[in-house]
């Protein structure tokens, strides 16, 4: 192993992993603190029907702390570690090629196999270390709040979560090593992660498909309930074998292929475009790289991601309707008798009604996440011109900084609207064709409020980009507003004494009134749009007043 490569690779990513762990700790701490203030929750848990408990992934015996811990391991922690793992894995080898630094690294008199081994060792150190640190921080959070977690096996849950995340992360690592294409590596692994999450969660709810989730690695995070039952070594053994094989295969492929220099690798879309049969379709989805104007280019730069995301949202929104019909009989009407505090704890998702089902499954997490992917990316784009140093060429032409920022802002609004329209269309089609009978104006209200929420994420990223010119900071801030806002609303919102605090979250203003049941909340919409406007103006003015980077 190459010690200096190992140490540098670890050092480069330590901050990112550290930020992830701290974010998880704060979420766990906040959630445990808010939950511990709700009286009598344990009793209600005991009275929930089995189907409902399964659906929410709760372990009945371990009470509120157990619910919070299964959220941390099965959802928050899994996505944070999965995201970190995939981005680090994809960049480990392919990132050096993308940046052109492989040219320097490859001139050292050491074999590619040793380089690969050193990168892999650094990767394992970071992901396993990060996962262990996150779990330790949950324990610390429980001690700080005084929650009793003595019946929960955090170590076993950590082993399961880490092993599953290694499958996704090493997949990105191996594809990157085998192809040198960082974007493809992270794209494939992320796609698989999301499909796994949805598949493992949704498929088993359908009658006769109870075991279908087991084909997805995600299932094994809590499939054996390690928090309660300890480690299932058979599962861990199989998953470990999978990631080890991936790792070795990637290393072998790396030793046999040409190394790339810079971002010269051709994407799948490029190759499809080479064939005249597909060229027109590829251009339609990806954007032909319009060069008509600043605004047209700003829009077409982000068109590919936005169309894929919005189309995914559209299909999922339709698909949720037959899912509900398949499930409705199992869930029953227990929720009517559930007190608000407990209802809040399970995400306010009254899964016995179509509106509750859509609220819980589409509007609470998946929808905002898709919006965030699109809008944060569009907001960051202003700083990307500086990061890539293309702003020098743009501002060699007679255009003002204000119009450059204005074009990016216009694209942000257009892409947000696109996602909102497709979300509306998807829910409406699902509801109409599968006879759920949801009110069309309420669907429109929900899509509008969610779009305003997404706009706010993008505006936060845009403001940061305009004021600082740092694209990574802008991405962190935009994502932070989304994730932090979600966490505050989800965990703090459950405690009636802390409701004022939940109002700090934009999610409260977007979803707090259950738009699918109650229609538009003009106040909430106004708050979100006003906040977005203030942020947009801040970014627009800031961009015109500072030194540009690059």
């Amino acid at each position: 192993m190459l010690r200096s490569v190992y140490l540098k690779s670890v050092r480069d990513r330590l901050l990112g992993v550290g930020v992830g762990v701290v974010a998880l700790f704060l979420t766990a701490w906040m959630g445990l603190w808010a939950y511990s203030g709700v009286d009598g929750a344990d009793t209600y848990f005991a009275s929930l029907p089995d189907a409902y408990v399964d659906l929410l992934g709760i372990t009945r015996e371990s009470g509120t702390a157990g619910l919070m811990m299964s959220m941390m391991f099965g959802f928050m922690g899994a996505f944070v570690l999965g995201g970190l793992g995939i981005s680090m894995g994809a960049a480990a080898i392919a990132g050096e090629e993308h940046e052109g630094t492989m040219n320097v690294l490859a001139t050292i008199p050491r074999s590619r196999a040793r380089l690969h081994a050193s990168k892999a060792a650094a990767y394992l150190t970071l992901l396993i270390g990060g996962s262990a640190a996150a779990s330790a921080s949950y324990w610390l959070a429980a001690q700080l709040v005084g929650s009793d977690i003595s019946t929960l096996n955090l170590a076993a849950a950590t082993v399961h979560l880490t092993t599953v995340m290694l499958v996704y992360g090493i997949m990105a690592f191996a594809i990157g090593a085998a192809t040198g294409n960082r974007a493809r590596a992270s794209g494939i692994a992320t796609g698989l992660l999301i499909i796994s999450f949805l598949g493992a969660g949704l498929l088993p709810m359908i009658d006769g498909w109870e075991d279908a989730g087991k084909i997805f690695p995600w299932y094994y995070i809590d499939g054996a309930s390690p928090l309660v039952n300890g480690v299932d070594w058979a599962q861990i053994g199989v998953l470990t074998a999978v990631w080890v094989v991936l790792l070795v295969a990637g290393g072998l492929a790396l030793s046999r292929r040409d190394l790339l220099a810079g971002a010269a690798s051709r994407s799948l879309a490029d190759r499809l475009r080479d064939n005249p049969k597909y060229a027109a379709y590829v251009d339609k989805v990806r954007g032909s790289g319009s060069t008509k104007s600043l605004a047209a280019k700003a829009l077409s730069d982000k068109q590919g991601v936005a169309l894929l995301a919005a189309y995914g949202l559209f299909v999922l929104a339709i698909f949720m309707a037959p899912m509900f019909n398949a499930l409705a009989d199992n869930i029953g009407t227990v929720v009517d008798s559930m007190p608000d505090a407990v209802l809040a704890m399970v995400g306010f998702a009254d899964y016995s009604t179509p509106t509750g089902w859509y609220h819980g499954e589409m509007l609470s997490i998946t929808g905002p996440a898709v919006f965030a992917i699109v809008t944060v990316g569009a907001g960051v784009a202003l700083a990307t011109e500086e990061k890539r140093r293309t702003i020098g060429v743009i501002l060699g032409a007679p255009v003002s900084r204000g119009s450059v920022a204005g074009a990016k802002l216009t694209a942000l609004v257009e892409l947000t609207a696109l996602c909102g329209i497709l979300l509306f269309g998807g829910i409406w089609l699902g509801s109409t064709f599968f006879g759920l009978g949801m009110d069309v104006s309420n669907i429109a209200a929900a899509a509008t409020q969610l779009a305003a929420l997404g706009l706010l994420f993008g505006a936060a990223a845009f403001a940061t980009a305009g004021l600082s010119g740092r694209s990574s900071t802008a991405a962190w801030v935009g994502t932070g507003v989304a994730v932090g806002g979600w966490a505050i609303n989800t965990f703090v919102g459950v405690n009636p004494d802390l409701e004022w605090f939940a109002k700090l979250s934009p999610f409260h203003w977007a979803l707090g009134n259950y738009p699918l049941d109650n229609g538009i909340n003009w106040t909430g919409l106004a708050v979100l749009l006003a906040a977005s406007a203030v942020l947009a103006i801040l970014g627009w003015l800031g961009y015109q007043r500072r030194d540009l980077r690059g």
Partner: protein
Amino acid sequence: MTESPAIEVDHLTKKYGNFTAVDDLSLTIERGEIFGFLGPNGAGKSTTIRSILDLIRPTLGSCRVLGLDSRTDAVEIRRHLGFLPADLALYPNLTGRRTIEYLANLRGGVDMTRVDELAERFDADLDRKVGEYSSGNRQKVGLILAFMHRPQVVILDEPITGLDPLVQLAFHTLMKEHVAEGNTVFLSSHTLSEVERVADRVAFIRRGKLIAVERMSELQEKSLRRVTLEFPQPVAASAFDGVEGVHDATSEGTQVTARYEGAMAPLLAVATANGVLSLTTASVDLDELFLEYYRESPAGNEAA
């Protein structure tokens, strides 16, 4: 407005925290000249240029292009300006032609036959994606972007990076033609040879301060010659102190080496008086002169 200089930099200072990148720099570049801007890496050349372009804002002082203020009239200035940034970055997913179309659309009124003409002169392949270009090919696109609209003022930051000698020649010819039409070129570089062949005047900048502005022709005249004298006996270097046109005399054994400018007679008079045996001369080229500007000199010598 036609009377105002092409570029005026007026007591420009740019500080980053405690670090002063450009320190009270003043320059005037007249219309119709090729102005070389020379200095070592990190001297403040790009900082000066980025201030003129309004990409960054001066801490003190101001810049004007064609009499227009770089802050308040930035957009109007760019209408008449061509710019090639240092270490040029373009959009890797666009072809060279699409890149040029984009910037031409933003600018408006660009004659695309001019683009084709320039592409031909530089032998530029515009049909591949910029991400697949070598640095030289990328630079050709940058040069086309800077010249395609026949701007009154062209600012080029390290333009010949990656260009082969043939393209460099085409580029120099283009610059001369452009200036012959009454336009101005501001050419920043860290190598004298790039500037020597084309510039009318040169400025030297070091550590953010302007060291000198010289007319190229005068600089060439100033270039010194070196003489080595052989004597039958050791002669002290001080024998040449104060002799007209003689600099930096040193002695080693029976040999004296000195540099001189202008007529040789005073030097020869002293040499003959000491019974000089033989004499060899060599010219000190501009490079050496240039290196002198680069090297550290006592603070007193740094005059703006």
